[in-house]
């Protein structure tokens, strides 16, 4: 027999896709899941220009990505008492100023929403199997190496 129904668990929305995302639409979707939301923290990662950079290409490990991100999102939901959580990560070739990743963390109180946003992006950067290579105007192409700063940010949580 099933255990008696207690409380609806918060399930994260996790997507890995080529296409871009509509932040407003994702926020509306998140707001429909709970009237307990008082604030939504968000982070959008963007392809930063400079030094002749033209585009980034993102490679990923299909299947493992979704699994790792879902695990991180569930950890955030428990740890920061979230009322909702969305993570969308793009793969493929992305031009300068294009969005790469969207994190949304909804909570009754803003401190939890903002903390969870930071937790998720810090841990995702070095914990989810994505790899970026850079493509420059002069034709050079090279893999981005992981930064000690990012490793530190992730292990701080």
């Amino acid at each position, binding site marked *: 027999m099933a255990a008696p129904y207690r409380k609806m668990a918060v399930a994260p929305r996790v997507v890995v896709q080529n296409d871009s995302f509509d932040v407003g639409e994702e926020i509306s979707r998140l707001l429909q899941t709970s009237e307990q939301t008082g604030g939504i923290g968000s982070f959008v990662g963007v392809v930063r220009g400079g030094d002749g950079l033209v585009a980034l290409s993102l490679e990923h490990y299909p299947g493992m990505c979704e699994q*790792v991100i879902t695990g991180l999102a569930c950890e955030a939901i428990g740890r920061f008492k979230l009322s909702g959580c969305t993570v969308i990560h793009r793969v493929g070739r992305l031009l300068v100023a294009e969005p*790469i990743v969207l994190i949304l963390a909804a909570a009754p109180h803003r401190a939890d929403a903002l903390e969870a946003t930071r937790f998720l992006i810090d841990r995702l950067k070095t*914990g989810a*199997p994505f*790899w970026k*290579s850079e493509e420059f105007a002069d034709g050079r192409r090279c893999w981005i190496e992981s930064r000690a700063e990012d490793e530190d940010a992730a292990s701080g949580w």
Partner: protein
Amino acid sequence: MSGAVTVLYFAALREQIGRAGEVMPLDNIRTVSGLLAGKRKNDPVFDKAFPEAGIIRVAVNRVLADFDAPVKAGDEVAFFPPMTGG
């Protein structure tokens, strides 16, 4: 024949090795380290691609693992550089 494992390579490692992965017989391999030692013996490109074990990450069945993690028939073992998402 003691079964097979699927081995995958990603990003810079995939490019250096020149393929995305392969299915290989398990033979007497019991751990990730054992699997890698076999690779190094049979194909010199692996010494070039894995100069230091420390900077290579490994996942067994899509979960990050250590090099002494056990490997059994049917497992999916992936090798890749440190991740740079977000």
